[in-house]
């Protein structure tokens, strides 16, 4: 079925269904920020390189700048706003795993998914997953400590 004339999209975001008027060319990042006011996912490179825009789709990290909003229909989207009071968030605060904080939501999303999917991940797996994100302030050591503490708890 062509979706050409579809003007309203129902997106499940942070366990709530949202009706959104959209263009098929809208990225998930654009819709989350521009239509839903969820500004936690950050525009960085817009190219799929930096990871600042990472959200979870069915629990899997996705760079929302390289995903169309319409592709998320029928899936559960989780943004940083959906992780309030989680152990992942607390651990990043405890370990001061940020400086300017711009990249932090993306790191937290990847870390949260990793802890859920692979709670016993070894160092190589942690490195592989976390390499998807870039921190220009180079808080990598603190980020590594935060991630390690969450996995250790799991």
């Amino acid at each position, binding site marked *: 079925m062509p979706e050409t004339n579809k003007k309203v999209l129902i997106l499940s975001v942070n366990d709530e269904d949202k009706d959104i008027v959209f263009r098929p*060319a809208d*990225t998930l990042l654009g819709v989350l920020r521009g239509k839903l006011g969820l500004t936690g996912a950050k525009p960085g490179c817009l190219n799929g390189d930096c990871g600042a825009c990472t959200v979870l789709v069915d629990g899997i990290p996705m*760079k929302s700048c390289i995903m169309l909003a319409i592709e998320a229909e029928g899936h559960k989207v989780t943004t940083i706003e959906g992780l309030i009071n989680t152990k992942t968030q607390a651990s990043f605060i405890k370990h001061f795993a940020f400086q300017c904080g711009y990249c932090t939501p993306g790191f937290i999303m990847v870390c949260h998914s990793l802890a859920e999917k692979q709670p016993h991940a070894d160092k190589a797996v942690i490195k*592989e997953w976390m390499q998807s994100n870039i921190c220009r302030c180079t808080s990598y050591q603190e980020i590594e400590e935060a991630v390690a503490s969450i996995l250790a708890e799991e």
Partner: protein
Amino acid sequence: MIPVDFDYYKPESIEEAARLHEQLDRQKMLPLYYSGGTEIITLLRLDLIQTKAVIDIKAIHECREHILGEDYLVLGSSLTLTQIEERNAFPLLTSVSKEIADHTARNKITLGGNICGEIFYREAVLPLLLTDSLFVIGGPQGVKILPAHEAFQQTMQLGRGEFLIQTLTRKDFLGMPYMSVKIRQQWETGYPLVTIAALKAKGEIRAAFSGLCSFPFRSKRMEDELNRKDGTLDVRMDRALRHIPAPVLNDIEGSAEYRLFVLKNTLTDILTVWEVEQNA
């Protein structure tokens, strides 16, 4: 933001996808097949490609198949690279795939998208070339199956309205000794100076390359030289390098001279390991 509008279609069968493409093509909508879409979104954002309609093939059952059958491993073109890595039925493909982009990006990048994309590295094709895999292609004329070396010559050889549905790899290739190495100018993510995938099939070395020329390739002539029994490894290597099928890239990632230096050393390392093992 993508500055242009396009229509989005999500067919559920090969026939419907092909029919849609024909129809949209007639309407001059410049239709594009869409799978992971990462490259299409980026190129549209930069106004480097044009389309008024994308046809998302992810709902087509055959494009999502992931089956280790009696004779073949079937990989649907819409499988993401991480889905292929996690199942790990094809260790050489896993090894090559793990070096493409980064883990989160590979949750979106698909096998078909990597092979059929505009960005010329297309590293996922290397293991498929080495294992004489088959490519299942759909289009207005129906479905056809072609050997990888026919379907992929520098780029995917797709006719108007055709798209990659699946790849088929004979099971006996999946367990053969392999090595893959991606050498970058620096860091651990990014485009390669050269990527080498190598397979040892019945004592003979097969090798395929990306990042060396402006297209990925497997060269039988290079393999013949590497497998010759006369001459030292160094001599065989020099003979093989004479058969690189196109000018070696000379760009910001690395000069042609440096790429050749890296290629020769890396290939020497691979062959040395295998030849030491063989003589042990």
